[in-house]
């Protein structure tokens, strides 16, 4: 009996979390894009009477890190708290994956290598002679396909064996001899020992100019000078590593000559002793020679396959890309909120009303319950909580489509094709990930911003994500829109999503222009593009189940409790007790009444609307459940202005834009700090109020006089075009030749900057 810590380490998007879920029987979020896991997750399992603490870490390309979430992994690897590292590689780009493996070996941490996605190699009719690599690296290698099925038991067996028998790594990293490591060690040796680094490893990192290690070493001026004199070795280190990798992987992947042979190889994979396997590979090589001319043909095919695949030619086409994206989103929303979702929601609504609400209230009246208990159970709990519960089908559908987008790899294409727009407003395509995830849940989306490498960009993305309409806001739109605009409601809901996204993009542009701490300027954008993969039913269900579970738990706890509190506070007064049927004002009627005048201009300046918006701060769904329980479903009790349907629309706009929930604020504090959390709070309330005011004003114009409205719209459009053209003219004249700025004010600065380079 012993206790071990085993960490999963690897490049982004190689299937670390898939394997983690297999090993620990967990349901952590997986997806076909880079940076799904942004924090370490761990779970204890029992294996062979040993306790194994499995740790899943965010992906990283190198121990010299690039973004915050990679830093988490690096620290975990460096602090040596793991007894073993399971390094996961993806067979499709083995070379780049082994780059990290070499760094782990340089660090001399006990490592077992998993080569994942063997299924994709098999589909191409190829086999991997992993024994050949095993012989050089002298660490156990386990091939598997974590997405579908995998022999987790074998892997754990190999892993524990390796922990128990592991001495020092015996691998001969011959490429290190090509680097002047001894010279560097003679300079930094003492510092490395003080900082707790292995001198050889520290020397490699110094050559790589790794800022983290250099900082820890705290070198003095003399040492820095001596290192500088050695010249720039950064590229050299990468080059010798890759040369070594190319050498050991050469010929490791070959075409299986025939399917029979392939079958045989598969069967013998785990059982054949090394010598025999070597022979097998040799005969394999001979057969390969015959197939070589065949291979040449295939090679050119592979080059094509890697490039713009047939799907990408259409999806990323210059003219079709954006329309296709919008069409896909529109289709998702129409199916979710219109056709399919609505039907199931209606079914559930009917069920709750006929099977629970009616019989239960009847029974409560029959057994002579006090009137306030009947009210609490009937209106407060069943109407309120039930009113949210009926949205379960729509939420399941929304997450189903989000899961498809994520798992197929389309979401990375969206990042790639929108990068052009995002660049202009100081963001990158990578921000598109976070913002699209915002359609699911604002709080969890904000956390995914950690994968953004630039500090300013991360702050900005975090501030903008809450404006993307999350799934908790959906019940509010659905219910309100259904009450006022029966047939058109799916379009109105889609409009809300577009409005949210538009506000976010406009604010980004505004930040870039006007707010200095949020100006990110020109940034580089380097993102790996995953291949299209077919989403498996298992993983899609996993994502749906996770989110449905979260939703049901919220309904059962926070929303339930809040509904009871809101109902009690709004039906009891300080002095008179239960207020129904009495001439007394309830507690909330008084408190919310103080704020109510603020919303007078929108036509919902009454305490019920204010109460629902206030309770929505805890969870947005509560906005609608409060309305349902406060008004027993009569929307006109909320929208008391002269134009109830316009007020209803404005109410939706306000709900879209004001603070999503306390959990999101907490997430923002975590990612950007308390200062920015308060900035975000003010921003959300301010933007919500101003946009609502403008929206209501424009709407009012429409209601007052349609002619005037259409006229002003035309004038506004023409004026905008004129201004845009004029500004473009002026900009075009002074365009800076050195950077993307169009104003020309920076020409002199840029000129100076670019001079020393040339």
């Amino acid at each position, binding site marked *: 009996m012993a206790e071990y810590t085993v960490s999963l380490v690897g490049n982004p998007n190689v299937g670390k979390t898939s394997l983690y879920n297999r090993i620990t029987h967990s349901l952590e979020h997986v997806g076909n894009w880079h940076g799904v896991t942004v924090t370490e997750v761990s779970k204890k399992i029992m294996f062979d009477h040993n306790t194994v603490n499995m740790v899943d870490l965010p992906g990283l*390309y*190198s121990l*010299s890190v*690039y973004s915050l979430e990679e830093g988490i992994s690096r620290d975990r690897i460096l602090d040596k708290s793991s007894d073993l590292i399971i390094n996961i590689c993806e067979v*499709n*780009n*083995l*070379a*780049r994956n082994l*780059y990290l493996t070499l760094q782990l070996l340089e660090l001399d941490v006990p490592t077992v290598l998993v080569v994942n996605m063997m299924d994709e190699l098999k589909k191409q009719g190829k086999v991997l002679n992993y024994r050949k690599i095993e012989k050089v690296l002298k660490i156990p290698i386990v091939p598997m396909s974590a997405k579908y099925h995998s022999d987790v038991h074998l892997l754990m067996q190999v892993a524990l064996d390796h922990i128990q028998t592991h001495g020092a790594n015996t691998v001969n990293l011959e490429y290190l001899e090509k680097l002047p490591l001894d010279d560097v060690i003679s300079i930094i040796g003492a510092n490395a020992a003080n900082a707790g680094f292995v001198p050889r490893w520290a020397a490699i990192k110094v050559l*790589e*100019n790794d800022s983290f290690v250099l900082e820890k070493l705290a070198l003095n001026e003399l040492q820095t000078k001596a290192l500088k004199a050695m010249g720039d070795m*950064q*590229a050299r*280190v*990468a*080059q010798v590593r*890759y*040369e070594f990798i190319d050498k050991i992987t050469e010929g490791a992947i070959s075409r299986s000559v025939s399917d029979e042979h392939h079958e045989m190889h598969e069967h013998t994979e785990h059982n054949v002793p090394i010598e025999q396997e070597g022979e097998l590979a040799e005969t394999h090589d001979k057969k390969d020679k015959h197939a070589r001319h065949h291979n040449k043909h295939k090679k050119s095919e592979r*080059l094509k396959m*890697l*490039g*713009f695949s047939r799907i*990408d030619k259409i999806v*990323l*086409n*210059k*003219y079709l*890309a*954006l329309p296709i994206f919008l069409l896909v989103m529109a289709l998702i929303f129409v199916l979710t909120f219109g056709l399919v979702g609505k039907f199931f929601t209606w079914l559930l609504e009917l069920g709750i009303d006929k099977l629970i609400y009616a019989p239960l209230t009847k029974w409560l009246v029959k057994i002579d319950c006090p009137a306030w208990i009947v009210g609490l159970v009937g209106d407060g709990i069943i109407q309120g909580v039930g009113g949210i519960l009926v949205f379960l089908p729509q939420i399941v559908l929304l997450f189903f489509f989000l899961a498809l987008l994520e798992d197929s790899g389309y979401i990375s294409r969206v*990042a*790639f*094709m*929108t*990068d*052009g*727009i995002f*660049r202009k407003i100081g963001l*990158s*395509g990578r921000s598109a990930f976070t913002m699209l995830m915002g359609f699911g849940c604002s709080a969890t989306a904000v956390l995914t911003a950690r994968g953004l*490498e630039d500090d300013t960009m991360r702050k900005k993305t975090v501030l903008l994500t809450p404006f993307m309409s999350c799934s908790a806001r959906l019940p509010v739109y659905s219910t309100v829109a259904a009450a006022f605009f029966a047939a058109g409601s799916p379009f109105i809901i889609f409009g809300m999503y577009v409005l949210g996204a538009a506000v976010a993009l406009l604010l980004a542009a505004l930040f870039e222009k006007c707010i200095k701490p949020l100006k990110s300027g*020109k*940034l*580089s*954008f*380097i*993102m*790996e*593009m995953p*291949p299209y993969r077919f989403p498996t039913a298992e993983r899609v269900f996993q994502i749906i189940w996770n989110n449905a579970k979260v939703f049901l738990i919220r309904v059962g706890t926070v929303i339930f409790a809040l509904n009871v509190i809101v109902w009690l506070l709004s039906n009891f007064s300080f002095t008179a007790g239960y207020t129904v049927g009495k001439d007394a004002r309830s507690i909330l009627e008084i408190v919310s009444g103080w704020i109510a005048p603020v919303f007078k201009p929108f036509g919902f300046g009454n305490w019920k609307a204010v109460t629902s918006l206030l309770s929505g701060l805890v969870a947005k769904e509560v906005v609608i459940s409060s309305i349902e329980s406060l008004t027993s479903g009569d929307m006109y009790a909320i929208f008391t202005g002269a134009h109830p349907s316009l007020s209803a629309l404005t109410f939706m706009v306000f709900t879209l834009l004001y603070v999503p929930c306390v959990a999101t604020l907490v997430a923002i504090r975590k990612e950007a700090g308390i200062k920015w959390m308060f900035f975000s709070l003010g921003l959300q309330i301010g933007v919500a109020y101003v946009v609502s005011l403008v929206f209501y004003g424009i709407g009012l114009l429409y209601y007052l006089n349609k002619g005037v409205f259409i006229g002003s719209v035309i004038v506004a459009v023409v004026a905008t075009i004129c201004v845009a053209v004029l500004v473009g003219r002026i900009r075009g004249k002074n365009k800076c030749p050195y950077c993307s700025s169009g104003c020309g004010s920076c020409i002199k600065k840029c000129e100076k900057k670019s001079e020393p380079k040339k």
Partner: protein
Amino acid sequence: MTLLDAQVNTKYKVCGVSGEGNARRRLLDMGFTPECSLYIAGVAPMGGTVLVGLRGFLVALREDAASLIEIKAAS
């Protein structure tokens, strides 16, 4: 010449990566090392970003990062 001057779907070889700091290291770590062959698989619909294929995978690069990569025609 740099990757910016490259033709789409033509093979090139890397000569080196210029510049300094994070972007350069990331490019080197990803395998843009001398003599490695690469090609441009496509350009983003709105421009400014290119999709580069190397070592069996695809990576999206903004123009500024692409301009750091010096290339030569594959012989």
